[in-house]
């Protein structure tokens, strides 16, 4: 049932004002409506830009972007060629990250026509003059435009934000500095903790759907009590997302759940990793023993498995999986339990 304004005792003072100064109140309401409309527009704009950001990040990833393999952008005379030094751009990257007007004079393609390009003579960096390598100026233009664009997008939401800057005394240093600035801006957008963008239409690959669902789960975990707009296709991940929000449990609870069997959104997880234990000739009877099995949220299971496979300074620069090779059962168990604890699955 909707509640009328007149029923609200909290607003009695405001009602008195309303009676005594109707024009003022009407003006105030109009102001509020206008402010709300502006906020809604801004919110919509932010969401749209985040969507562009998300798409950009996906494209960047799926393009197997490698900063160490710079290419001259398509459309230029050197288009598509590999350039000589690191710190470049992928040809598959979009030229602009949003349709917002960046705070510079860059227009797609325009500066390329103005640039003198290959063999254009020395350019100045602070007090030094240096000879640009082929493609270097174009990469510099690109990096600068992307940095300015990214800064502008952050400052629309957080006007006081400024990136950390450093002193560059070479063209390559300038390029890498611009890249760092652009990434700082993207990181700031993520840090603002706006909800992830969920596409309305179902992504075609299960990997993409899982990536988005995990991003949603992570956001909900960090922003307890908040809600997020959902799409119908995300229903398939609902159990896994809900499970990810589980608070840490005792070892007995996790083991008991494993004994009960599988459950949607959860995985049966071996505390001592089964594959490496098997490789090191531990018997299946130990590996599959009830006290080595816990039922944990699927996304946590994936996170922990991923952690085991990544090289790690704390494990002699090997992956934890490699570190555990030839170790005894107790050491494997200790690492397995610590991993559950530090990933928020097992109660401390």
């Amino acid at each position, binding site marked *: 049932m909707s509640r009328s304004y007149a029923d609200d005792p909290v607003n009695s003072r405001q009602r008195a004002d309303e009676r005594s100064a109707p024009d003022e109140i009407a003006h105030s309401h109009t102001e509020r409506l206008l402010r709300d409309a502006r906020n809604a527009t801004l919110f919509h704009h932010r969401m749209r830009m985040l969507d562009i950001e998300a798409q950009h*990040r996906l494209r*960047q*990833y799926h393009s197997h*972007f*490698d*900063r*160490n*393999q710079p290419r001259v952008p398509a459309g230029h005379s050197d288009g598509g060629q590999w350039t000589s*030094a*690191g*710190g470049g751009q992928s040809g598959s990257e979009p030229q602009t990250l949003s349709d917002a007007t960046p705070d510079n004079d860059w227009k797609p393609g325009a500066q390329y026509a103005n640039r003198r390009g290959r063999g254009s003579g020395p350019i100045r960096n602070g007090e030094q003059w240096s000879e640009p390598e082929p493609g270097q100026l174009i990469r510099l233009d690109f990096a600068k435009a992307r940095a300015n664009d990214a800064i502008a997008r952050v400052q629309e939401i957080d006007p006081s934000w400024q990136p*950390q800057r*450093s*002193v*560059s*005394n*070479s063209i*390559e*240093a300038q390029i*890498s*500095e611009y*890249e*760092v600035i652009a*990434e*700082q801006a993207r*990181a*700031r957008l*993520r*840090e603002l903790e706006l909800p992830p963008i969920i596409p309305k239409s179902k992504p075609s690959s299960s*990997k993409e759907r899982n*990536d988005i669902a*995990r*991003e949603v789960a*992570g956001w909900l*975990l*960090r922003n307890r009590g908040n809600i997020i707009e959902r799409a119908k296709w995300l229903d398939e991940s609902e159990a896994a997302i809900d499970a990810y929000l589980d608070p840490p449990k005792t070892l007995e609870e996790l083991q008991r759940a494993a004994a009960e069997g599988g459950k949607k959104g959860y995985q049966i997880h071996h505390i001592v990793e089964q594959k490496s234990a098997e490789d090191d000739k531990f018997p299946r009877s130990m590996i599959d023993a009830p006290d080595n099995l816990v039922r944990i949220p699927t996304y*946590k299971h*994936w*996170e*922990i498995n*991923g*952690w085991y*496979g*990544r*090289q*790690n*300074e*704390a*494990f002699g*620069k090997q*992956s*934890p999986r490699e570190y555990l090779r030839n170790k005894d059962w107790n050491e494997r168990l200790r690492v397995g339990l*610590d*991993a559950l*604890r*530090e*990933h*928020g699955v097992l109660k401390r």
Partner: protein
Amino acid sequence: MTRIDVKSMTTEELVNRFVLIAFDQDAAIRHDDNATYNRLFEQMETIKDELRSRPGDQRHALVRLFEHPNIQVRLKSAIATLALVPDAARHVLQGIADSRGYPQAGDAGMTLNALDRGIFEPT
């Protein structure tokens, strides 16, 4: 991959490269791409080794990344400087571990755990 000539890079360029590698590591982790992550790990080790070899141990230049907005940059800069500024670096790691920003929160917690158990002795 183009081999990076770290010897010819300034400390500032190396720090920028460190940040860029961390960004790519972050993306690789989010996409469960451990092969890419491990390749990037080696690249970052090269950068750290070069910084350490420079007079005064230039890994100190990574300390300013402790407040970087990207969680992977904070994680990696803290780990890289544990031998130089142990208390401050541990403080950063603890903050990440407590942040619920997984999977880096898990990584930070396991690093602290390895330090406490004496498995990890930063150099």
